[in-house]
């Protein structure tokens, strides 16, 4: 898949519209999910997805195949766009979100219910961005640790430690009793 994507990227950089469409069809879902899980907003996720592919067409010549896959490069672009948007539209402090979803029972007992999934989503969204992106890429997305390291611009060891810390935070957030009471 990776070599096909590299070939598509080469054609895309020459202005090939079909290559753009092909790459978009294959990868837009993953990028859209990443953006949605990072921001929690569908409209923003759609914007970011489009911007990601346009940025790939513009700056794709910076891609270095020896450092990772095209998908990881796409994740890296999307991640930068997400962080910019989050910086611009910082809604509320993370603690507020914690208070919103924190309950006095184990939420996983009823995970089949939609609300429970939404609560997990909110828990992920409440993580600090550095931990959130590690979870979204490696646990919710399709990225390997190496891909995540390439996308985040950090060593694989850092990805692992962030992931570990993120999981600990999630465990705490999903079981903690209501902190405001």
């Amino acid at each position, binding site marked *: 898949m990776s070599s096909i994507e590299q070939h598509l990227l080469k054609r895309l950089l020459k*202005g090939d*519209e079909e290559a*753009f*469409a092909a790459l*978009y*069809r294959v990868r*837009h*879902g993953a990028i*859209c*999910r990443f953006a*949605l*899980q990072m921001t929690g907003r*569908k409209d923003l*996720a*759609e914007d970011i*997805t*489009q911007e990601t*592919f*346009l940025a790939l*067409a*513009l700056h794709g010549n910076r891609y270095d195949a020896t450092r990772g896959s095209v998908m990881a490069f796409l994740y890296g672009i999307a991640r930068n766009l997400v962080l910019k948007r989050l910086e611009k539209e910082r809604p509320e402090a993370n603690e507020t979100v914690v208070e919103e979803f924190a309950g006095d029972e*184990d*939420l*996983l007992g009823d*995970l089949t219910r939609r609300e*429970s*999934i939404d609560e*997990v*989503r909110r*828990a*992920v969204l409440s993580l600090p961005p550095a931990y959130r992106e590690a*979870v979204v890429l490696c*646990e*919710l997305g399709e990225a390997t640790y190496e891909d995540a390291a390439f996308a985040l611009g950090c060593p694989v060891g850092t990805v692992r430690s962030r992931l570990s810390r993120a*999981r600990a935070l*999630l*465990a*705490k957030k*999903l*079981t903690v009793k209501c902190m405001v009471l």
Partner: protein
Amino acid sequence: MSEDRVTEALNALRGADLDIETGPGAEVRALLAFRRQQRRIRFRRMALSLATSAAAAAAVLWLTVPRVQTRITTAPEVAVNEPPPIPPQSQPAVIHKSAAPRRSPAPQAPEEIATDFYPLMVSAPPLERAMLVRVTVRAAAMRSVGLNVGDEHLADLVQADVLVGQDNLARAIRFVSYRNREE
């Protein structure tokens, strides 16, 4: 909560989000945006290419003209009271006999004929002193002042007099040719 339960929770979320994609029409919108972007890129490349070509042409011209001038002999400095008559460029060039040939022609020497002067500056400062410099240029230079030159003669070398002011700026140019007195 145990590690396994966290994994379970994340897996549940991943499963729920598996079908999430951009909305209908998003691919078309992205394609349209891609087309606009590519048009902008092509336009920028073309503009850059044109600018580079123009700069290169200007550089060649700048480098060529001084080199030609160093090869020619400079005519003696002459005092000028008023600028020479300069016809508007739209008028056809009139080749006429110079009233006073610049050089005293040797017997049987070909007769020198010259065009009118053509301005090289749009608004020139007053001319107090000037000198005529005889240069050799390509015939294409004649076309640049509006004279008719056949395409096959553009590369021919022709002689020209450049009127240089006291400020060392070229003010005007006339083209010179010779013909035998017998003609």
